[in-house]
């Protein structure tokens, strides 16, 4: 039998990372707005699309099936509908959607993997 098992053994061990200036304990939390690492371009775009999904002004975005091509409403369809209604959706969203056609992470909404 090893040492006594602590409840914290079930948590993954995370080594405390050294700050950029080499400080260890007692450093202040990173300031607001400053990311610890810059997000990759893909992830920034996905984040933009997720914010588009969550914006209630452009109408509902639920997508009720696992097959993105046959069902529900894709982000591009929602964008076009919002534009036709005169809601002025952000054009960057459309540009991002057009640069990644066919990729379900981009085209389908946030909830497309959940059967609704």
């Amino acid at each position, binding site marked *: 039998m090893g040492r006594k098992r602590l409840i914290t053994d079930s948590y993954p061990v995370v080594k405390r990372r050294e700050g950029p200036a080499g400080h260890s304990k007692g450093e202040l939390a990173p300031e607001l707005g400053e990311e610890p690492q810059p997000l990759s371009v893909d992830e920034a775009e996905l984040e933009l699309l997720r914010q588009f999904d969550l914006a*209630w002004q452009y109408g509902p975005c639920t997508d009720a099936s696992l097959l993105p091509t*046959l069902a529900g409403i894709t982000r591009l369809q929602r964008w076009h509908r919002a534009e036709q209604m005169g809601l002025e959706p952000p054009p960057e969203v459309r540009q991002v959607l057009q640069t990644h056609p066919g990729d379900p992470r981009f085209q389908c909404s946030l909830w497309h993997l959940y059967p609704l």
Partner: protein
Amino acid sequence: MFSEQAAQRAHTLLSPPSANNATFARVPVSTYTNSSQPFRLGERSFSRQYAHIYATRLLQMRPFLVSRAKQHWGGGVQVKKLCELQPGEKCCVVGTLFKAMPLQPSILREISEEHNLLPQPPRSKYIHPDDELVLEDELQRIKLEGSIDASKLVTGTVLAVLGSARDSGKFLVEDHCFAELAPQQPAPALDTDRFVLLVSGLGLGGGGGESLLGTQLLVDVVTGQLGDEGEQCSAAHVSRVILAGNLLSHNTQSRDSINKAKYLTKKTQAASVEAVKMLDEILLQLSASVPVDVMPGEFDPTNYTLPQQPLHPCMFPLATAYSTLQLVTNPYQATIDGVRFLGTSGQNVSDIFRYSSMEDHLEILEWTLRVRHISPTAPDTLGCYPFYKTDPFIFPECPHVYFCGNTPEFGSKIFRGPEDQRVLLVAVPDFSTTQTACLVNLRSLACQPISFSGFGAEDEDLGGLGLGP
């Protein structure tokens, strides 16, 4: 009108046969455009939710309602969303109505085991004094109370209410308004009388033989094979026939094949097969002589959800040889000689009848025109395709003739809108029970019923077989 024209000519029936035959050329249709494109469905996908159609309905109707509210209650009225409401402050809110009805058939209640309920028998009206109205907009919902008649309104109506929010969380309504009529293009001025015949509810395959005589009389009048030269001349002024739904009878929809065992029903044909053959022969006679538009109805072999798609031409092998036969969608919209027609086969009006206290079908028809939506109860209690881009049932502009088929009795009325719009409302009666059709005069926008009763075995008086009122 129709019979007065007929009476002007000299009677020729009891005269000796003449050497030259009188021929009457039918009035040609100068312009016809079918504008039912919004009701055609291409590739259909039913895995969308209905939230989209409600959202687009509210978004599309909101600007109309805001401008009407400003007209009614002054330009200074504040239009707010539900999330911005302050208690006690008088303002106007635009939203979709939901009516919570305890008597509404609910499948969840029926299959819920804890209640152990038997399915409710169908009633003619599901209204109850305890019905409550709730107004919903994009984000929130609020209960309505006050001077608003809950029994008259139905779910799915988009309206603007003026009032204030109470501390109890309900909204006290002082006044409400609808989107009223859409703008209308002026009706063209025609120089001759042209008629469009509206018939609905032919009810073929119903088993009763009496209505077949009436149908045959109708076909004979329109094709000019009945009556004197005067009547034939008048019939030549009928430029189009619109069959507004329920061409087949309710009896053709028998569900025996589902309930009985397979070995009993294997060789039996569906009742609708025989009825469609009869319909094909009737359409052949009609379309050989006059352009016909056939709209499907509740009991016809097409899809159930609105908008119903046109019947398939393969069912009418004889009649489709003629290009004058047009198979069209259920809400049907067309411009005939410059006069805009819009109509349905009656499912929208009868659904509102079930969930509202309004009794007269013509009154309900007028109400849908004022609400600016052909069928507000779709998709709640009436089946509807899950649209997501636009709601095609909102009136983009006001028609000149607005009709609905399969009503229990004939009714027609001229309705005037706030911006001088003039609409002829026609409630086309069910032909299989009333033997009455409607003649719409395109020049004067007036409607006249025309009945084709034959003598039944019970009929004492020989007052039938008449033309005109």
